[in-house]
């Protein structure tokens, strides 16, 4: 153990390098600099990982664990690596620390005691990468089912219909004869049964494992409450097919009477192994796939991925950063997306509270106009695929125009800048105020939401909550200010913050954030006018398979739902196939669910529906 006395009193400030030096002093020989080309941070020996992480949190002040993920370095040292990105909640860059473990019997100590926010992320790493986290109280698969064979993010794992290690596939050109994938057999090279398998005795233990430790199995557990009422403890499944779960998501709740005693989120119904697809893809192939993560806010997802890859590209010799106009357009798109998303979130929170669809439709009617603009600019309403590395795909059009043709006849024609000006100065603020007038004082809403789903400040940080959930608990943490990107440093806006940490504050903070977004957009408009005619893309349009220099990068943006991070690694032969070695998504919807159980304890069944609505999850991102 470390001698506490020799440590200076205040270490929780200073830059990351100072923190790393202190860490090395504390654990001599156990903490090494990561010296691989393009890498940063430290590699901590797994034997001291828990103590070192405690020191990182308490002594060095990196108390917010943003992301935990695994990387398989098959062929590059043949080890697995767990990568942690910890931040100070007061802002600043990350302390990246890593722990390595051999591929066989991969095991590292769990950091759940230090950072409770590692809970679901460690389960995900166990599920997809096969790393056991020693000391994790509930180390089960999370996205896949219990009987799944293998860990799909390992580099030697092959999916069904496996064709080739990397895209582009050779079978597409020059002799590309199309065949439907269904005609191939799934049970070809990819499915292996153990020799002693008896199919008739095959059973799935997912459910029984899930319920173990819950009230199930005790048929009638008579309990007498203080009022003398006999109650049973009961396990109820909310979902997966339930309209209030915002998608195919399931909450297993243990009830005492109608009070929730225990809640476990069950997810993965929409799992498609996004990350593994991303590793088969070439670098720019991933851009349209990011649209499908949080499909309400595709534009911001694009930006996160573009920022991550641009960090890597910046290592290269011939890199020009995006032009100013490109950055202005990016901020315009992202802030409009935030309004779209929060409108949607508020509308559906009201649905969850039982105000069926009238508030939702009022909220999303303005969204339609924003989406019309997206459609005219990017070509699609929700799947924009608009950002590119070093810029955006195309400039915003002169006019939002449609032409009558043999397919469609109802035409519109607006001047884009007039349309945007009207939208930003009049319509959106009007819609926000109207929502405020419509809902904020409503007595039923107040009765249902004030004091419900309380998440205290320290717990919000510990559980790695992000976005409105974190800020509604009194933590003014916003990536746009904490680690600024794009042109945010020159824009004047405040980080919205509320202090009560309940559903009502999570509703109010979304209104606040939309108002701040409008404030930003009003500053973006003159910049759009001023930069008219400038280029929006700094790269070479003819390059269709960009080469990405070696290294790792973690690009994060303040997505409407919270902090969206992309951890990307470029490895391998610089002249070989150009695809990400690792492509990890730090999904805010997924990680915000870590605190769901905590928020729901002691509330009624109807309340947990509202609590879930107040977190604002989207399953495309949760399940990936």
């Amino acid at each position, binding site marked *: 153990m470390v001698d506490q006395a020799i440590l200076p009193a205040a270490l929780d400030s200073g830059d990351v390098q100072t923190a790393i030096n202190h860490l090395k002093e504390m654990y001599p020989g156990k903490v090494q600099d990561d010296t691989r080309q393009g890498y940063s941070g430290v590699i901590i020996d797994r034997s001291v990982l828990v103590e070192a992480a405690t020191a990182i949190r308490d002594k060095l002040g990196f108390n917010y664990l943003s992301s935990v993920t695994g990387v398989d370095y098959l062929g590059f040292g043949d080890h697995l690596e767990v990568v942690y990105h910890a931040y100070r909640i007061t802002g600043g860059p990350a302390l990246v620390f890593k722990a390595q473990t051999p591929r066989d019997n991969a095991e590292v100590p769990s950091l759940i005691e230090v950072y409770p926010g590692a809970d679901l992320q460690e389960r995900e790493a166990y599920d997809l990468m096969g790393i056991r986290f020693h000391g994790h109280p509930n180390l089960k698969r999370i996205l896949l089912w219990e009987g799944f064979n293998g860990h799909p993010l390992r580099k030697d794992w092959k999916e069904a219909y496996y064709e080739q290690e990397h895209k582009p596939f050779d079978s597409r050109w020059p002799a590309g004869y199309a065949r439907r994938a269904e005609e191939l057999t799934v049970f070809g090279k990819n499915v292996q049964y153990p020799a002693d398998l008896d199919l008739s005795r095959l059973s799935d233990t997912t459910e029984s494992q899930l319920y173990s430790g819950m009230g199930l199995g005790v048929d009638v557990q008579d309990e007498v409450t203080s009022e003398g009422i006999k109650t049973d403890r009961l396990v109820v499944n909310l979902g997966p097919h339930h309209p209030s779960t915002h998608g195919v998501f399931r909450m297993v709740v243990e009830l005492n009477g109608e009070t929730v005693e225990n809640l476990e989120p069950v997810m993965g119904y929409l799992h498609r192994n996004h990350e593994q697809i991303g590793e088969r893809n*070439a670098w720019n192939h991933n851009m349209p796939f990011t649209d499908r993560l949080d499909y309400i806010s595709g534009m911001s997802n694009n930006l996160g991925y573009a920022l991550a890859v641009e960090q890597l590209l910046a290592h290269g010799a011939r890199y020009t950063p995006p032009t100013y106009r490109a950055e202005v357009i990016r901020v315009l798109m992202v802030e409009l997306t935030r309004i779209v998303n929060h409108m949607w979130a508020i509308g559906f929170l009201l649905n969850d509270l039982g105000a069926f669809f009238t508030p939702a439709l009022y909220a999303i009617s303005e969204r339609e106009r924003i989406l019309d603009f997206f459609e005219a600019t990017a070509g699609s309403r929700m799947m924009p695929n608009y950002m590119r590395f070093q810029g955006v795909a195309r400039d915003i059009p002169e006019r939002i125009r449609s032409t009558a043709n043999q397919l469609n006849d109802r035409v*519109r024609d607006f001047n884009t800048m007039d349309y945007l000006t009207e939208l930003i100065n009049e319509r959106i603020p009007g819609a926000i105020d109207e929502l405020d007038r419509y809902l904020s*004082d409503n007595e039923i809403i107040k009765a249902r939401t004030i004091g419900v789903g309380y998440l205290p400040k320290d717990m919000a940080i510990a559980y790695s909550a992000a976005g409105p959930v974190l800020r509604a608990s009194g933590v003014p943490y916003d990536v746009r200010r904490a680690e600024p990107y794009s042109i945010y440093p020159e824009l004047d806006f405040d980080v919205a913050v509320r202090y009560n940490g309940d559903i009502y504050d999570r509703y109010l903070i979304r209104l606040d954030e939309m108002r701040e977004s409008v404030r930003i957009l009003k500053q973006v408009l003159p910049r759009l006018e001023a930069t008219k005619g400038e280029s929006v893309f700094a790269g070479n349009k003819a390059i269709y398979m960009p080469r990405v220099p070696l290294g790792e990068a973690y690009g994060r943006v303040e997505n409407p739902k919270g902090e969206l991070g992309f951890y990307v690694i470029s490895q391998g032969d610089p002249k070989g196939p150009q695809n990400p070695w690792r492509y990890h998504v730090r999904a805010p919807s997924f990680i915000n669910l870590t605190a769901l159980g905590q928020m729901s304890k002691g509330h009624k069944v109807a309340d947990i529906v509202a609590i879930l609505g107040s977190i604002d999850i989207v399953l495309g991102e949760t399940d990936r």
Partner: protein
Amino acid sequence: MYGTGILKGLSVTIKHFIDTYVEDIKYLGRRVLKTGESFQERQGVASRGLYTVQYPEEKIAVPERFRFVPFLVVEDPDHPERPGDDWCTSCGICSKVCPPQCIWIVRGEDPVTKRPIPQPEAFFIDIDICMNCGFCAEFCPFDAIKMDHDYELASYDRTGNHIYDKAKLSKPFSYWYGIAPTTATEEAADRGGWEHSDVIKDMKKKGQPATPVSIPYPEVRAEWATAAASGAPAAAAVVEAAPAEDESEKAARLERRLEALARKRARDARLGIQ
């Protein structure tokens, strides 16, 4: 007072309710007359209340950049020199840049020398796999593959209908100009004329000027028609010669296609695929 918040909220509901009717009455005549003017206003930033588009009787024309399953640009059927010719050179960039890998191209090759020729022998897009990202159109150096506006692709049989072949994918250039005049003109300006970039190169070698973009494409087409009608001997000769040439080429193409099919069958048999 308890309940005032609810009443305040309900006033918003009433406002929405009335707004829609006020607008309906205001535009009543124009809506019935279907001038389209009311549509423009009621679906824009000046509208109040709600307006329902009566799909499928009414269809909102999508903006130019709207993207749906791609199509291949071919020359117009009434083109005086190259009717129906492919713009695609089967370079394969679209199939490489396609994120879900839904494009299959058989590169054309000369039947005698076996060397690649700039024309696809076959071209397939599996519309079930296509994610409408638009990369193929964005990166095509020849402006030969474009995103369509036709989003009504539902069919009764997904097994036979959803792999589009070259015949189904090919649409004339005038169609592309029809759905996206601004973009088509911009691209033509980048190429230096209305023709395919390879044709422009050839013309430059011969010292001929390309058709300038300053003339709108419909006028260019109208000129072909007048030239053909006025019976200008040179143009007429070309028009007459063209179909004959086309016939022989078509036969050759069919032959090549059959050969390709036979090769595919042989390969399938070798691999044991039914």
